[in-house]
Each structure stands twice: as structure tokens, then as C-alpha cells.
């Protein structure tokens, strides 16, 4: 039996010093959580879902409960999960009001014959299988609201430099 390994990331960008400690703490906690799933006999698939859920639940990160806002001030979330054993995969895009899109992606993989559901269809599927809808306010931090207000004032400049260190997923 080989030893299990789990690796996580919290996003590659110009992480400001003020959130760097929380970012490191967050990835360490997520790695421990995912690793505990492996140690208790869980599969790699179970472990990556658990680790990403922990990161989605942490408002430090741009996913789930710490998501950025789009031009209309709304949250649109994307996620994917892939099982290397079978090449099965599931994904959702532009989904709203879901705290853990990675689990919805896994449901697409396991409960449908499709690979990706998007937008309204993804939310309808979530509702049909009993996912609880979360109000948008629960997915957005006060920090993000302030950043969105600040940046929408010079949107043209940001979009002209779309691939800058400040504008990464």
C-alpha cells in the first residue's frame, strides 16, 4: 500500500500582505482536513472534495463564501471535479446561491449523464436534488463589497489590463 498525498492551493495572484497570513492558515487547515479523509480510508475523490469545501467555506479565498462580484454585483461560481480512476468528471459554471459548488459538480458527475451544467440549469439541478440555496449576501464579504465599489469606478482601466496581477481568477 502506498502513502497518500494531498496538495491544495488558494489561488495564484498578488496576495496582499494583510491577507497573506490568513491565506497560509487557510490552506494548511484545508490540507489537514483533506488529509484526514485519506487517513480514515477515504478516496482521493472524497479528499479533494473535502479540502475544496473547506476552502470554499473560508471567506479569505475567492470561491464559495468569499467570492468576487461580477459587473452587475452578483456572484457567479464555477467548479470542477475529476476522478482519475474512471475519467468521470462533473462541472458547474455561473451557478448562483450555492455555498459549495464543488459538491454540486460532484453531483453532476454522479447523478447525471452530463459533464457540465451552467447557469439557470445548474441551479435548477441543485434545487432538484435538495441543495440548499444560500442568499447572495452570505457568499460575499464586506471586504469584497468595498473592493467591488472601488473597482467599478474605473472598470474600463481594469478591463483594458485584463491579464494583470490584480485581475486573476
Amino acid at each position, binding site marked *: 500500500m*502506498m*502513502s*497518500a*498525498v494531498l*496538495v*491544495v*492551493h*488558494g*489561488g*495564484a*495572484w*498578488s496576495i496582499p500582505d494583510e491577507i*497573506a497570513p490568513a*491565506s*497560509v492558515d*487557510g*490552506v*494548511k487547515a484545508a*490540507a*489537514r482536513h*483533506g*488529509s484526514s479523509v*485519506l487517513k480514515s480510508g477515504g*478516496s*482521493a*475523490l472524497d*479528499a*479533494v*472534495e473535502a479540502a*475544496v469545501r473547506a*476552502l*470554499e467555506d473560508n471567506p479569505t*479565498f*475567492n*470561491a464559495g463564501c468569499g*467570492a*468576487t462580484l*461580477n459587473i452587475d454585483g452578483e456572484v457567479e*461560481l*464555477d*467548479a*470542477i471535479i*475529476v*476522478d*482519475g*480512476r474512471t*475519467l468521470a468528471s462533473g462541472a458547474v*459554471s455561473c451557478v448562483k446561491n450555492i455555498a459549495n459548488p*464543488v459538491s454540486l*459538480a460532484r453531483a453532476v458527475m454522479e447523478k447525471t449523464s452530463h459533464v*457540465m451544467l*451552467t447557469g439557470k440549469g445548474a441551479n435548477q439541478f441543485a434545487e432538484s436534488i435538495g441543495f440548499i440555496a444560500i442568499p447572495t449576501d452570505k457568499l460575499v464579504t464586506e471586504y469584497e463589497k468595498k473592493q*467591488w465599489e472601488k473597482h*467599478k469606478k474605473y472598470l474600463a482601466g*481594469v478591463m483594458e489590463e485584463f*491579464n494583470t*496581477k490584480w*485581475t*486573476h*481568477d
Partner: protein
Amino acid sequence: TVGAVAVDCAGNVACATSTGGIRNKMVGRVGDSPVIGCGGYADNSSGAVSCTGHGESILKVTLARLILSHVEQGKSVADASRLSLQYMGDRVQGAGGTIVVSPSGQWAATFTTERMAWAAAADGVLWFGINPEE
């Protein structure tokens, strides 16, 4: 964006990636994260990858699959990650980061942005970092 890759005791690999996108993005804009072979890929024959960074650039080079194609050709996961991120920078001027694990348990966390928070748990040890060369 956040992500995870893992290999379990049976040698099975998996990946997951999740994101809120880019602040002030167009309504309906989708980056690399949910696209298979771009934001993530996993295959027991080569390994598992999760990507982060500039989504449009990652989409253009199908970054996750590109990394695993280098692994299939005999590169280590670290070299495969570096080569692929360098290719993305050269070809489409995009920056980003990746985490990779192979079925044998080799792993790497690599990025061309200023920072990327990452952590790895293996053999009861926790590694972590945020700055280059950590």
C-alpha cells in the same frame, strides 16, 4: 480560485477546482476553472492537476492537460509544471499557478505570479508556502 489534488492509498488520483471568477467580470464570463483539461484534470495513468491564474490564458494552452502530457513524456511533475507555465507566459503572456500529484506520490506546487498560498500533506508531514522558492 482554490483547488486540491490527491492520490490515495490505492494509487487513485483526483482533482477539484472552484472559483468566484474575476471581480467585475462580464456576466456569464467563464474562465478555466470548470473546463476539463484546463482548470483541472486527473488520470490514474499520469496524475492530477488543479490550476489557478488568468483563466483565458489557461484555457488557451489547456494548462492541466499540457502538464500531464509532459509527465507522460517522462518529465517530473515539478519540471512539467514549470515548462507548462513558462509556455503559457511565452505564448499568451499569462501567469498562474498549479498543484500536481502523480500516482506514485510525487507532488509539486508551482507558480509564476507574485504569490500562491499552497499546502501539502504527505507521510504525516505538512509543507506550506506562499512566496517563490518557499
